[in-house]
């Protein structure tokens, strides 16, 4: 392989054309790709990981959300599913994929979901012991622990107190943040290196096992034995091309949207089939509560608390960070009328109503301009979203004593009573819900579009191992589930290709080491507002 290198850690950032060859070529370095690459490299196969994004660390992360989103999110954070309603679909684009920009929330796969997956996949998860072993290993590698109360932010605490007041089942999130300093900036890339994202926890092991990890390389064409694409610099200028040969397999771990898009764009499979079908987006609908007192006074984790009272109805309420830039579009006021509320933006708390959707969408080819995602909110999910938003409003108004709530719907207004909330949501058309998705899943499901080891049906030698592989929505933040499924599938691929699978978790002596960046940070009290609102 000839590879001019600009910057080198354990990864390589090419400065122009490059070529390569490996037993297994893996496209994508996120939750699925990192696990697959580690499993296969440590099983003795030569592995080459191609990542379109770049490596970032606390020395290079930007505190500006807009910059972070532009750098580290798919399509500059503007990727959108077309349908009713149109919905932003977030996804990471960095070495480590979405694990670099998620909130580190680490749910185990619910038993009932695993049983459902097994049924939908025709028995791919029959060996539950193997799955739970994989999940235990993943959690150990990522140092998943419950968020301690001291790391709950002000808005987490309001969320928790309101749930407690209502007697609702509620918990602190389990998270993979062994050195969390409470900055509340997980989604910009952790500024202190406190999160065990896979660029820290796993990908160095790929290099240590003799694998190669190459960034800035955007796959445009895949086949059973090759991957081709273009090389970009950090300003997204195309500076070259690449072509790599896979001697044994190509694994797509580019995410729920990009993996099927690559297959369809490359004509590996015909459009209109199972690849790309079955997309679930795990939509979120936000409800803001406005309080008499500041709720952001205490910093802490970006998301630390959730309400599980409505889990059987496929609804979870998750404490969301209070972000001023998100509050402005979330309230109906603007101009001078908005002044009192904006100057007291730290009085807002936010909860995300996460709906385990039952409806399905589809990924179609891109035509070179980003994936085309089709997704309509089903009637059932729409009703569930309305129920969830009603619960969220109750959390703030009755549990937390909020002065009013803002339901994030088009044409919404502030509601001061539950009757107003119910009136607003009654018969609300699907197009007026403002939802977003951070957890697209199941677009190339095992058992539906792929065999039980992830090999795409009708495309021998090409595998998909990422969130696409899930047979259905987890209904929870899916990081741990995606990595556990990836481990199970990668073990099967490794065995099939003649490798010898090694444990993912190497025991306490092998705890990953988070670099110490020495960034002045930590739990601190922000200053009060400089200007009190003029009502």
């Amino acid at each position: 392989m000839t590879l001019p290198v600009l910057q080198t850690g354990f990864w390589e950032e090419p400065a122009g054309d490059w070529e390569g060859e490996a037993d297994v070529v893996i496209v994508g370095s996120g939750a699925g790709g990192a696990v697959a690459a580690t499993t296969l490299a440590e099983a003795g196969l030569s592995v080459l990981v191609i990542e379109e994004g770049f490596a970032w660390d606390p020395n290079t992360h930007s505190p500006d959300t807009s910059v972070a989103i532009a750098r580290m999110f798919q399509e500059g954070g503007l990727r959108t599913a077309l349908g009713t309603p149109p919905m932003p679909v977030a996804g990471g684009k960095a070495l480590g994929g979405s694990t670099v920009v998620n909130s580190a929330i680490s749910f185990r796969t619910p038993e009932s979901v695993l049983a459902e997956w097994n049924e939908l996949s025709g028995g791919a998860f029959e060996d539950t012991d193997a799955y739970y072993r994989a999940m235990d290993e993943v959690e150990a590698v990522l140092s998943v622990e419950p968020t301690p109360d001291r790391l709950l932010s002000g808005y987490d605490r309001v969320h928790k107190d309101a749930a407690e007041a209502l007697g609702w089942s509620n918990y602190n999130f389990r998270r993979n943040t062994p050195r969390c300093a409470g900055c509340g900036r997980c989604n910009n890339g952790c500024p202190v290196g406190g999160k065990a994202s896979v660029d820290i926890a796993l990908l160095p092991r790929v290099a240590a096992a003799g694998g190669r990890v190459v960034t800035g390389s955007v796959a445009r064409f895949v086949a059973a034995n090759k991957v081709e694409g273009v090389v970009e610099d950090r300003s997204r200028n195309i500076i070259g091309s690449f072509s790599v040969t896979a001697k044994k397999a190509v694994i797509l771990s580019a995410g729920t949207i990009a993996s099927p898009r690559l297959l369809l764009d490359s004509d590996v499979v015909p459009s209109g089939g199972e690849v790309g079908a079955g997309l679930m987006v795990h939509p979120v609908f936000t409800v803001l509560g406005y309080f008499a007192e500041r709720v952001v006074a205490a910093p802490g984790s970006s998301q630390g608390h959730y309400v599980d009272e409505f889990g059987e109805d496929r609804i979870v309420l998750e404490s969301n960070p209070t972000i001023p830039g998100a509050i402005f579009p979330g309230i109906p006021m603007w101009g001078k009328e908005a002044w009192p509320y904006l100057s007291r933006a730290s009085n807002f708390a936010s909860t995300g109503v996460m709906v385990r959707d039952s409806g399905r969408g589809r990924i179609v080819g891109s035509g070179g301009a980003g994936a085309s995602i089709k997704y309509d909110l089903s009637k059932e999910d729409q009703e569930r979203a309305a129920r969830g938003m009603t619960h969220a409003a109750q959390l703030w108004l009755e549990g937390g004593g909020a002065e009013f709530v803002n339901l994030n719907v088009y044409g919404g207004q502030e509601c001061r009573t539950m009757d107003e909330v119910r009136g607003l949501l009654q018969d609300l058309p699907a197009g007026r819900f403002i939802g977003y998705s951070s957890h697209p899943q199941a677009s190339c499901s095992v058992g539906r579009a792929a065999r039980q080891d992830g090999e795409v049906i009708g495309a021998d030698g090409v595998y998909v191992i990422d969130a696409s592989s899930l047979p259905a929505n987890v209904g929870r933040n899916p990081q741990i589930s995606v990595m556990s499924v990836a481990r199970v599938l990668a073990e099967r691929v490794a065995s099939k290709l003649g490798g010898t699978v090694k444990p993912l978790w190497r025991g306490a002596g092998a705890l990953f080491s988070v670099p110490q960046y020495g960034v002045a940070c930590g739990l601190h009290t922000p200053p009060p507002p400089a200007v009190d609102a003029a009502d």
Partner: protein
Amino acid sequence: MLVFGAATTGVLAAAYAGLRQVGTYPEPGPQLEGLSVLSRKEVAIFRRLGDQLLPPGGPLPGSGGDDETLRRMDAFYASMPDHKRTLSRGLPLAFEHGTGLDRFGARCFTKLGEERCAAYLTGWSDSQLIVKAQLWTALKTFYGMTYFERPEVLASMGFAVPCGRPS
């Protein structure tokens, strides 16, 4: 004949409205230095929109239409992938020329007087038309990504300076 007459009238009316729109297109002021994407016309539209949405003189520093916000808007556009940038450039134009579809007739948004300007935007914010509501929310989101990223704005709202930000 009646149909022909009606069609001709429609075409002439549309042509007149179009000419008025073009004729009243904003006379852009001097371009801000250091911008890489936004044209002078786009800057003029965003300035007017920003000063309406986040007017100066309130409890928060600056405004949605001041130079700093516009520079951040330019940087936001520059950060977009090409196809999204092309699409997003339609946003200010929708507001600029949306007057043609409203009761404000054939005068561009940036040429409306203060009172009519506010009334025009109220029409957007209160609209029950989903497409208009979506564009309005998108516009507010764009200012959310720019004005509300300013450190002095965040500080004045009582938000901590994010960890890692150079002091």
